[in-house]
């Protein structure tokens, strides 16, 4: 067991063999392993988590993660997807963090869909953000408050953050109860409210080429984006100027991405988008007509 008292929460909704593989590699790293099955049975019995729950119907990863968070007994928590894998540096990262007090630790990941010089890599945008913030190297680096809005411009993947459990509970930070984009609130509100943020260049997660990934869902389901963005946009609107300056283009880029890359369209999408931009004109000005 590593020196960090940390729980693993996995929201699962299908691929049992991938989940078993993940849980096998989690042994010895986590003090508590919680699997929340999203409406369907996932575990094959080959690996046994400490706690397994099943939502009575499919409610999305956000609801599953929130339920898992409520049951965490450890000081820290890592949310992970069943179809991803721990990075080679995760054990060393957890050892680095032992004895440190922090609210969030952000770490690097590698993506099987991207290759650079024959190796997995992060996407170009994420690499640029790490470099711009001066956090591209260093096994463990405290993140100054002025750099946190920059760090928030990274993709909102929950599996590249370790959170202090009590911090999330005290600040009432949870995942959006949506099918997709549920990770936006903990990502932005976590970094906004955190007192102690650490960054690590260690690769703690490997994103696999999965089938039926939520991030690959296309079409009207993407209208969830606005339900996830709206509560965050309301809070950021009252935050300091650097947060607003970073959030507006980030949100606009995400809306564009959903339309261009995930075919978000149709009457529901258009209606939700119209309501959202009426409420948040600062983001609306960033959207190309």
């Amino acid at each position, binding site marked *: 067991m590593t020196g960090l008292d940390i729980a693993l929460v996995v929201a699962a909704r299908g691929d049992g063999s991938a989940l078993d593989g993940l849980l096998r590699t989690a042994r010895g790293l986590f003090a508590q392993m919680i699997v929340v099955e999203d409406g369907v049975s996932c575990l094959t019995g080959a690996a046994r988590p400490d706690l397994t729950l099943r939502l009575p119907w499919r409610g999305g990863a956000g609801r599953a993660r929130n339920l898992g968070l409520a049951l965490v007994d450890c000081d820290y928590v890592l949310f992970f997807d069943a179809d991803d894998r721990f990075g080679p540096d995760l054990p060393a990262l957890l050892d680095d963090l032992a004895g440190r007090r922090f609210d969030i630790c952000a770490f690097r990941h590698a993506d099987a869909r991207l290759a650079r010089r024959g190796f997995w890599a992060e996407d170009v945008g994420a690499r640029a953000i790490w470099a711009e913030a*001066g956090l*591209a*190297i*260093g096994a463990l680096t405290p993140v100054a408050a002025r750099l946190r809005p920059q760090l928030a411009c990274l993709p909102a993947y929950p599996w590249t953050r370790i959170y202090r459990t009590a911090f999330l509970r005290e600040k009432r930070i949870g995942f959006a109860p949506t099918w997709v984009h549920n990770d936006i609130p903990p990502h932005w509100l976590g970094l906004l409210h955190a007192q102690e943020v650490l960054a690590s*260049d260690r690769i703690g997660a490997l994103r696999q080429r999965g089938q039926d990934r939520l991030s690959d869902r296309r079409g009207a389901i993407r209208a969830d984006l606005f339900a996830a963005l709206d509560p965050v946009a309301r809070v950021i609107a009252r935050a300091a100027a650097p947060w607003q300056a970073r959030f507006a283009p980030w949100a606009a880029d995400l809306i564009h991405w959903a339309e261009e890359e995930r075919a978000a369209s149709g009457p529901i999408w258009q209606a939700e988008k119209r309501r959202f931009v009426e409420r948040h004109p600062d983001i609306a000005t960033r959207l190309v007509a």
Partner: protein
Amino acid sequence: MIWPRDRFCPDPLAGLRGGTYAQTPLIAGAIGGSDLSWQPDPKGDFRAHWHSPQGRLLELDYACLGAVGWLGLHLPVPPDLGAGRWFGVALRHAADRPITLRLCLRAHLPCAGREDVFFLRMGMVGPEQVDHIDVIDPARIIDWPAQAQARELVLFLPVTQDYRWALHDLRLLAA
């Protein structure tokens, strides 16, 4: 290609690879009980700290305050390595901004002098980890110092700019 394990047992960098060392001011001398050592310009005006995270050799924070002549990271190698067909070095590193390293094989000669044979490739690195590999073929070096009392690998780090540098691994190769 062989790893000269017989010549490097115990691993001269094992202490740094396996252990952790807290933030330490950079001064001339051995690094964390390993054979690695810093040799900075004693008159240089700089501020630097290093530490060794788990699984990595070291991370360096360097700030240039004035004139600095050099900053070297030294690793002794067996003197008979020069008798081989070639000698190589492989290192994995990263820096928070683009920097350039020069690497050389330094021979300490019986006449008390020394001679540096530089690797041809410069170690250019930025925010992304890179693997730097280079070899020296003594047969192609004019005036190769075949007779040496001692040899060491020297990494000359930049001294005129501020930077953070992480040395993830360093291996020597010979054949």
